[in-house]
């Protein structure tokens, strides 16, 4: 077993060495360094496309998915080895995709065979870019009160309504969308999960400007959009189960399951910016933050180790989402304080001017998107502590 893993490591290392272009072995710095794929994606370099194509041909954009659906068919242990080897050469992710992170796992669990064969390989190859149609103007934390309707007419659903906070709706090719198919049923039971093409007649989008400036968020409007019935995923009225399953993946992503430890600590930055010239109260606040940040990183490590050892305590994605996002907000507040009036800069000629203020403002959304902190605490109270309902 261990020998197999080591021979896989050697094989993966050699293949990466031969196939990962030099230009793709550097950290992602700018937005155009991220490969999102899709019909209209413009590659920022020939190497970006070459790297995606090579990884997709190998099935390694989604190493653990079955080969039949465009994946690599790797075991969890092999996928971990692959990730380690990619890190070792600082290889960029070949593809970033809501299809991989969110829809894919739900399709694998709830999709029909035909849907899996149709959609998963295109996600794996970066051919189709997906967006998520969840929130509505009247359905935020109370997502199940959504009102976008899908009415059956022959072999189509006719969709009418409005979504909001749809990330990259203006760039996505397809949408996975929560719709109400049964107006009479109790609110959680009338919801269905539909997949459809954003190029369909009657779909329009409009970007949302945030307090931090331009954003990937959009409003998305559906005006008599006709969707073939075979694009219903799971059974009609069972969409809420899929929605919840998918939200768990989203929470883990936002809570920072990976990568948070690579950022420099507030204390390091404070030392660089202020040297010894720091008042004791700010220093104390930074230290308290750092104690929590270290303990949080160790907790992410422990949750992963426990999962690997089959000792998972379950329902912990809410804890990581809640605590991770609150910590990040606190971190941004402290960085603003450390940088004083320089942190207030909004626009300017110097490179990076305005970045900190925008990141600080953008971070306010961390504890709102993907389920607010209050919703996460509700989930912990209910599922982990088994406290009684109101």
């Amino acid at each position, binding site marked *: 077993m261990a020998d197999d893993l080591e021979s896989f490591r050697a094989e993966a290392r050699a293949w990466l060495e031969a196939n990962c272009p030099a230009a793709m072995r550097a950290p992602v710095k700018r937005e155009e360094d991220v490969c999102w794929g899709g019909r209209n994606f413009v590659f920022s370099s020939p190497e970006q496309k070459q790297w995606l194509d090579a990884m997709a041909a190998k099935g390694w954009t989604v190493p653990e998915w079955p080969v039949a659906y465009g994946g690599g068919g790797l075991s969890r242990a092999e996928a971990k080895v692959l990730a380690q080897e990619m890190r070792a050469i600082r290889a960029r992710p070949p593809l970033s995709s809501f299809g991989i992170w969110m829809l894919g796992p739900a399709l694998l669990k709830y999709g029909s065979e035909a849907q899996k064969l149709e959609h998963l390989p295109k996600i794996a190859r970066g051919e189709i870019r997906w967006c998520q149609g969840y929130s509505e103007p009247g359905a935020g934390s109370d997502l199940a009160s959504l009102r976008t309707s899908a009415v059956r007419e022959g072999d189509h659903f006719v969709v009418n309504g409005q979504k909001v906070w749809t990330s990259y709706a203006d760039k996505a090719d397809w949408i996975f969308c929560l719709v109400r198919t049964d107006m009479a049923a109790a609110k959680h039971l009338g919801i269905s999960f539909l997949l459809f093409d954003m190029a369909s007649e009657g779909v329009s989008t409009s970007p949302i400007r945030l307090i931090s400036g331009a954003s990937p968020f959009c409003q998305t409007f559906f005006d008599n959009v006709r969707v073939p019935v075979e694009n219903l995923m799971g059974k009609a009225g069972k969409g809420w189960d899929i929605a919840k399953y998918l939200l768990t993946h989203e929470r883990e992503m936002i809570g920072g399951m990976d990568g948070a430890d690579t950022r420099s*600590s507030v*204390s*390091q930055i*404070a*030392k660089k910016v202020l040297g010894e010239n720091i008042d004791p109260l700010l*220093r*104390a606040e*930074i*230290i*308290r933050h*750092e*104690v*929590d940040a*270290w*303990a*949080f990183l*160790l*907790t992410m*490590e*422990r949750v992963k*180790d*426990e999962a*690997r*050892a089959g*000792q998972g305590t379950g329902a*912990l994605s809410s*804890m990581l989402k*809640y*605590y991770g996002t609150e910590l990040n907000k606190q971190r941004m507040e402290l960085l603003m304080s450390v940088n004083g009036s320089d942190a207030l800069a909004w626009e300017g000629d110097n490179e990076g001017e305005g970045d900190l203020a925008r990141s600080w403002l953008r971070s306010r959304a961390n504890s709102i998107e993907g389920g607010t902190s*209050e919703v*996460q*605490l*509700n989930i*912990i*109270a209910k599922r*982990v*502590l*088994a*406290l*009684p*309902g*109101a």
Partner: protein
Amino acid sequence: MALVLNDDQKMIREAADGFFADAAPVAEHRRLRDANDPIGFSRATWKAMAEMGFAGVMVPEAHGGAGLGAVEAGLVLEAMGRNLSAAPMLSTALLGATALVKGGTAEQQANHLPLIAAGERLFALAADEAARHAPFHVATFAEPSGNGFRLSGIKPFVLDGGAADWLIVAARTDGETGDRKGITLFLVPANAAGVSIARRSMVDSRGTARVTLDGVEVDGADVLGEVGKGGRLLEAVLDVGRAGLAAEMLGVAGQSFATTVDYLKQREQFGAKIGSFQALQHRAAHLFCEIELARSATLRALQALDAGDAQAPLFVSLAKAKAGDVVKLATNEAVQMHGGIGMSDDYDIGFFMKRARAAAETFGDSGFHGDRMALMIGY
């Protein structure tokens, strides 16, 4: 190293949980408190703990111990925290044994370690002098005298000082109060001439004492480690104790939280279980997260000590700081959420708050350890 317990460690945790729930539950602590017990624990319990292998958990097998590490000692202390079990575990099995293992000569080890493991000899660390923990604030003076020294000074906060057979005394052979250099550790029999031990009744009802040394004669054979270099040894010993306290606080926090969540599910006001109120649910859920963070930091600290990791002191301070804050939050929330009954002496939850405060203070609170951690990472 993975942040999980291995199978042997899980067995020790189960054994410890079962033992303390049975032999030294909170009711036993209450009995000792009500009896105004001078040493604050039952010697029969300590004897039984030795038979379980707990007293010698960190004593090498060659000296009759279990030859295990800080992780295992921490599991015992966590179970003691859950049950508020009083016993000289910290003072003897962690601090005493560690001081001898790390600093003792072969003769000192052979003399003391087997008796520690057998539960027949108790140690107490007489180090702190300042009310707020400051390990190098040692004014107790070791005056050269013949082939040895004469020790004089006051140690106002000696855990299990009233029951100890031997003291480990930090005294100054050189330098100024506050210096790390110039401290020497001495092994002193508690009944030596010039040693007087006065019980101090403390909020947590444990057996704490004020130890006064008045010209206590010691010779070279009584020195633990090297003359003038005891500061480093003292830090290493204290770090094991601090991590052990973090584990105990984890137990105190976990049990007071579990008791509180149970209460939220039973108590009715306004015609509903109070646990259905979101104002309390969110605080309980937040506290759950905080305890999980303290657990991760504590396990890493204990593992780092066992691995001899150079970063162990950093993780120890992280764990002591985090667990100290969390246990105070947990016990304060426990009393508040219990309402009036939480203030009543007939109810146990107040004992948890008292022990939490004492354990958080002992060997450095979150302010001390946050600062120590920051200094260690160059901040």
